[in-house]
């Protein structure tokens, strides 16, 4: 589905650079992170309720792939696939990549993004809601993603925070530039 470019979308060049990269290593890394998180925070599965073992598709508007996420006490997984191959997903969440990251780390409010249409959902709304509320509680950050703790985690989080802020500013500028050239 083509959409008008959002100020939060990455420039098209990013998708072109990412498209040829091998998916398997990224799948393995993401799956390992999710399994580690579920093992460390069993309370999150209680919060998920009916969404355990339900495949949910996360579809970044500005990247070439979709992510099929399935959370499970033993075999949580993330599969990377083409956006046209997500029919097994019970629910679909679509948004620019930086928006999705901002939802993960609590930078953005999901409802506010829904109001502005930067975030769109399809399928079983209750699954999307349960997943969103669980991720809110998970308090995810990059340090956790790389299995760090203490000072190194804090350093990693501060670095990624700076990089993400710059990426959002860059994305906004790259959308504003052509508009200024047209006017």
């Amino acid at each position, binding site marked *: *589905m083509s*959409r*008008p470019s959002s100020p939060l979308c990455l420039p098209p060049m990013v998708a072109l650079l990412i498209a040829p990269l091998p998916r398997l290593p990224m799948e393995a890394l993401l799956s390992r992170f999710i399994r580690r998180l579920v093992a460390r925070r069993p*309370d999150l599965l*209680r*919060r*998920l*309720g*009916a*969404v355990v073992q339900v495949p949910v598709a996360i579809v970044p508007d500005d990247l070439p792939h979709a992510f099929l996420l399935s959370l499970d006490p033993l075999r949580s997984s993330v599969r990377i696939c083409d956006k046209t191959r997500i029919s097994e997903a019970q629910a679909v969440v679509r948004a620019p990549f930086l928006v999705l990251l*901002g*939802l993960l780390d*609590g*930078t*953005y*409010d*999901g*409802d*506010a993004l*829904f*109001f*502005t*249409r930067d975030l*769109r*959902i*399809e399928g*079983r*709304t*209750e*699954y*999307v*809601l*349960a*997943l*969103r*509320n*669980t991720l*809110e*509680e998970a*308090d995810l950050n990059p340090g956790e993603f790389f299995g760090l703790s203490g000072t190194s985690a804090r350093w990693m989080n501060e670095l990624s925070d700076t990089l993400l802020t710059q990426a959002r500013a860059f994305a906004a500028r790259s959308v504003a530039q052509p508009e200024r050239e047209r006017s």
Partner: protein
Amino acid sequence: MELVCPAGTPSALRAAADAGADAIYCGFANETNARNFPGLNFSADELSEGVAHAHRKGAKVLVAINTFARAGDVGLWKHAVDDAAACGADAIIAADIAVLDHAAANHPGTRLHLSVQAAANTPEAIRFYAEAFGVKRVVLPRVLTVPEIAALNREIDVETEVFVFGGLCVMTEGRCALSSYATGKSPNLTGVCSPPDHVDYREDENGQLLARLGGYTIDRFESGQAAGYPTLCKGQFSARGQTGYLFEDPVSLNAFELLDDLAKAGVTALKIEGRQRGKAYIAGVVGAFRRALDSLESGGDAGPAIAALNAFSEGGRQTSGSYKKTWR
């Protein structure tokens, strides 16, 4: 005035405490509270930890047990009251007479607040709850003007709490049957208005978004148009050849401009709606209203912080709602 802030999860509670909430309200993960949505709310253990954290930060915790108990099956609600008291809650917010009675009889040391779900908006009704159960505060329905609140406060000895930001119920709370009509689930009995398992969104290739509730198409948003919640009260209806919002537009309450008037009207506490919202909303809204309240007392300008809250508003629009009743 006290700033009362929402928390749907333990991390939201921490965000509210960090942002300057005087009190934080939350509920258990079951149908005893009116925000019974998937993935939200607290277990008893999480509530205990939340209360301890809030108290360390100087904030109180109010537990909403504010749905109406099922006839002949009040056990779940009584159990929730016992758990809230055991967890060290500073107050219980309730609406059902059986729940209030159980709390007053078995936990006299725990303060009782009357939920907005009880829809008590007359001196007689409020006095009844105060005399019968020792209720110390009433959360007023979002249907009164500021002069009406001032008049009410002159006739009662109970504290009043009013909503200042967030979602709006157009009806007197506790008496809404719209969600039940469309889905069979009631906000007042099962704690879910427009339950998500009855909500369905479809966006077509032109970017037009259709929102459906219980199989009914209740709203349509064109590409780029700000969307609202999938509630029947904010849906569009067709009648006599015209289509439009019959009860209420998708819009959020923002009573920032009326804070001084509300203080003069004798209001004790200001409530922010949004237990289903994320940490970003909690931090942004609580922080802005904290600044606004502090500037009421010590000067300063909270205008820019409040203006930024438009981004959190349903349909991208705000209203002072019934406080002014400009449509009259």
